[in-house]
């Protein structure tokens, strides 16, 4: 059978993104990033199991500027995926499909996930005594 070249939907070149579609693709992107980021968890746990020396160098690496940037990205991805995931669970229960509600919950997800990231890092810095 001959393949016809019909335009696909959504036609991304002319598609105007909205909050709902951006959050949807961000949910997927953060999900992929989190799975890749579990490599950090594997590394940290193995270092802890290997002994004080390996753990010390892991802490040094994760505490470096690069390590902190990665962890900041990871923590935001986690909080976003968590909040938006809860939004998805409500949808699975058949709740919150009205356009107004979908936008309100979308805005709430953005605000709460940023707030949780700020709170977590504030607490972590407080635990470390500001360093």
């Amino acid at each position: 059978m001959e393949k016809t070249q019909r335009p696909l939907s959504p036609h991304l070149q002319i598609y105007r993104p909205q909050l709902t579609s951006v959050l949807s693709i961000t949910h997927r992107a953060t999900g992929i990033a989190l799975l890749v980021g579990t490599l950090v968890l594997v590394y940290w746990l193995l270092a802890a199991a290997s002994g004080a020396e390996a753990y010390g160098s892991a802490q040094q690496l994760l505490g470096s500027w690069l390590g902190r940037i990665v962890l900041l990205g990871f923590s935001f991805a986690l909080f976003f995926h968590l909040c938006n995931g809860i939004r998805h669970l409500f949808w699975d229960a058949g709740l919150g499909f009205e356009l107004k509600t979908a936008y309100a919950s979308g805005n709430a997800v953005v605000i709460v996930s940023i707030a949780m990231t700020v709170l977590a890092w504030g607490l972590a810095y407080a635990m470390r005594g500001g360093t």
Partner: protein
Amino acid sequence: MKFRTPLARARGLGSAKAGTHHWWMQRLTAIALVPLSLWFVASLISVVSADHATVIAWLHSPLVAILCCALIVATFYHGQLGLQVVLEDYVHSEWLKLASIVLMNLLSLLLAATCLFAVLSIAFGS
């Protein structure tokens, strides 16, 4: 043969109950991960500046070790289910899709086993 009902013919031929298994397990692990990931982040914050001995002592607690294992299993199960859908959506070559799904599933199993080994070796270690 004439006395067989259509139901008897259909039995075992298709999905009658397990068709939503993937979807269901994704939601189940998601629900489990809500409290588990919040607990884990809070715990990490509390040991962020601690030395090795403190972290080992923390993982020596049975409750912590059990929750860590649950977190690891739920995380990699959830991640594997999620990434499988991504691969199914975006990889269009049939053999490449199958190969990447198999590889990703095996890899996440390996990573989960590694994490479990690390946690248990600390929990059962001296």
